[in-house]
């Protein structure tokens, strides 16, 4: 899949994963790379940027195994942003799917 494509969608993936629960970095990276082939390291610049833009807050939590982990939590602002992105995404994918369906039928 096209690289630019994936990078734009990565933001949406991270936001979606944090919608229901707070997660730590490694967990987010694993969840995404289970589904999409990415260089795992590229998630961290994204997490950092979204945190600085106020979409996430972070906190440290002790873990039963090993040192404490940095958890990411969605802010209200982040939730609104996720809503906007999801709406855009649905419109976009519906449009593309429609075109694909029509294209395939014509052939």
């Amino acid at each position, binding site marked *: 899949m096209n690289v630019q494509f994936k990078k734009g969608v990565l933001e949406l993936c991270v936001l979606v994963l944090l919608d229901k629960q707070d997660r730590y970095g490694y967990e987010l990276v694993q969840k995404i790379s289970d589904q999409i082939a990415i260089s*795992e390291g590229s998630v961290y610049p994204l997490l950092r940027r979204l945190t600085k833009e106020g979409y996430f807050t972070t906190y440290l939590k002790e873990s039963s195994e090993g040192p404490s982990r940095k958890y990411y939590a969605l802010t209200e602002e982040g939730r609104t942003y996720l809503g906007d992105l999801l709406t855009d995404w649905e419109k976009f994918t519906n449009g593309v799917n429609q075109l694909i369906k029509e294209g395939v039928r014509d052939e």
Partner: protein
Amino acid sequence: MNKEQFLAKMNDALKRLPSTEREDILQDFREHFEVGLSEGNSEEEIAKGLGSPHQIAKEMVASYRLEQVEESASTGNVLRAVWAVIGLGFFNLVIVLGPFVALAGIVFSGWAAGLGFILTPILYLLNVVIYPEIFAWFDLFFALFLSGLGIFIAIGMFYVTRWLFKGFVKYLNFNVRMVKGGMKHA
């Protein structure tokens, strides 16, 4: 590449960032390695999954430079941000440097024209001092007219510069978001 090598490479690539910022970034990767190890992966596997520390660091630096521009839009900060975004990949050399040189050209020539026009009466009078015989009222008034025009151009350029600058910073932000960034099968 093991954990130490990965972190050392990253630290090296981040050395121009302030130490608090750098330490914060490195800490996230230390944690990533620790969690990965506790789940039974080897340091080498984890490092391989993360991808190039150099590329990740470049992206971190570019984001940081753009934040700096948003804090203080000095020429130095803008140039550093442009440089960092260009460094993200060869592709950016074309799509960032090209527009940047073009915009810088427009801004420079606009200001040069405005200032040149504003200075016309002074230059004209200087000329008259040296060669008094060429003095003509029409020329003086025309020079004053150009000076007025120059003031309008300068005021216009003030807004154009600010507007172009904001637009370009947005474009840089878009670049950091969308272009390259250590994806597999790039």
